[in-house]
């Protein structure tokens, strides 16, 4: 009897959790839960049943899809016949698209490493205890906006551009345009130091270095100021310099992709910094 009463209470709490529609109310339910079991139901049958039905539905979908659409197979591999354009697998086309804005060592090696490392350190940088276990925008605006910018804009949109809008010579073709491999595109790109009137190699390099260095120094200072203003000094102390430094460095690198994109597409600027070893 006592056991069935306990189950009934459990079900009641569960029902309360079911009725909630927004994150806050789920959080309240969780807070009300006094220990393991309050908001909990048995995996068998509740979760296992849902998993099994999902398994069947997705398997059926995959089977129908595979019956209707054949996987591509082109001509046999010919190492001497390079197709134009040569595209990486679609999930890497965002990175291939970034090659328009950065040299391969940055777009192909450094940036992907930053993405992976940035994703890995995310839970350790984000010390906001709110928004754990429920959908909620208001509690974690900045985290969500940053993730949206990085994932949806910089990753997904660039993949769409690389997949559908790039043709021969990696030139821009709208879907209704014919892929013309002889399309003439003016190569009017200049480097930023040149634009500012620098003609000397050393001075150009120093100017570029100052701009890139200045971007990170001023950017970090600006972020520090903005965060202290928005969240208070107490938060910054709790956050700590290591977390702040890592977060702002990765964030500035992400924003740098957008800046470079705008400079290249809008103002035909190729490099910001030109040295004999690396160009940025």
């Amino acid at each position, binding site marked *: 009897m006592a056991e069935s009463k306990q*189950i009934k209470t459990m079900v009641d709490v*569960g029902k309360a*959790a*079911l009725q909630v529609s927004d994150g806050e109310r789920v959080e309240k339910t*969780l807070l009300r839960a006094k220990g*393991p079991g309050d*908001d*909990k*139901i*048995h*995996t*068998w049958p*509740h*979760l*296992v049943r*849902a*998993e099994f039905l*999902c398994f069947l539905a997705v*398997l059926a979908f*995959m089977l129908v*899809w595979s019956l209707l*659409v*054949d*996987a*591509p*197979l082109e*001509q*046999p*591999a010919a*190492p001497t*016949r390079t*197709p134009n354009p*040569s*595209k*990486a*697998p679609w*999930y890497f086309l965002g990175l291939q698209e970034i090659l328009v804005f950065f*040299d*391969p*060592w940055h*777009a192909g*090696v*450094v940036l*992907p490493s930053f993405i*992976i490392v940035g*994703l*890995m350190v*995310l*839970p*350790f940088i*984000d010390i*906001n*205890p709110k928004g*754990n*276990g*429920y959908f909620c925008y208001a509690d974690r605006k900045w*985290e*969500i906006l940053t993730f949206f910018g990085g*994932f949806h804009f910089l990753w997904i949109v660039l993949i769409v551009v690389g997949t559908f809008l790039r043709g021969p010579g990696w030139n821009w073709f709208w879907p209704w345009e014919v892929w013309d491999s002889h399309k003439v595109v003016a190569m009017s790109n200049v480097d930023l130091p040149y634009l500012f009137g620098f003609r000397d190699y050393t001075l150009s390099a120093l100017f570029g270095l100052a701009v890139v260095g200045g971007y990170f120094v001023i950017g970090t200072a600006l972020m520090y100021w903005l965060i202290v203003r928005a969240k208070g000094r107490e938060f910054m102390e709790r956050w700590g310099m290591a977390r702040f430094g890592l977060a702002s460095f990765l964030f500035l690198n992400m924003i740098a992709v957008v800046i470079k994109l705008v400079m290249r597409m809008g103002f035909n600027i190729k490099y910001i910094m030109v040295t004999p*070893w690396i160009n940025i």
Partner: protein
Amino acid sequence: MNKWEEIKQQIVESPVWQSIFRHGYDDTPRNRVLMVSGNVWLHLHPSKVRRHGIRLKFTWCMGGITFLMFLITVVTGVYLMFYYRPVAEYAYADMKYLEFDMPFGMLMRNMHRWAAHAMVIAVWLHMFRVFMTGSYKPPREFNWVVGVILLVLTLLLSFTGYLLPWDQLSIWAVTVGSNMARATPLLGHEGPFAEFAGVNAVYDARALIFGGGEIGPHTLLRFYILHCIFFPLVTTLLLIVHFWRIRRDGLSGPAL
């Protein structure tokens, strides 16, 4: 009791049956827990889960779908391995044999390929959902890190498999993708500071991936072994860790 009931009872009470199945389907709280904890596959779950944490609206089912796609590629992949030889002379011809001669060959290849693409999409959506519900927050920080490694492995599995058809699409996609490695600072022969590390076209990061200075039969064998043995093994190991951590930490919400 009729004859069939009698036979059923004899089977269920036989020592053989009872050695395999320890309990029936009685709908009691005790048995519901036993169902999960007493089954080697189901015990990857915790025996109880938070009610809101298993709703489709919450999970989008994407982690499970990613795993299902992995299973589909494993099963169809074994079938493809029966017929496919990772040798430059045979690889492309074997794709044609699969398509035209082998029973269900084309269906298996289609399922393998589409499941691989779907796995990449599902793992991204899974990561997006986990981010949106803040499920990387304590106590699940480390499991997020494991998840990021699994995301990279998913891409590597897909990328190494991309080469195996040995057609124009595959070698050039893999060439473009791998060419990045030759631009690695210090380790790639076209990357910055290459001269300090002493790398060259046949001895650098890309040559490690290709198994030589350029893409060729050696690359095909290398990618085949990575695709069929190494990456699936590592992925399986990390999946065990990933699931085990979910079981320890619960399906959703802060630590209780």
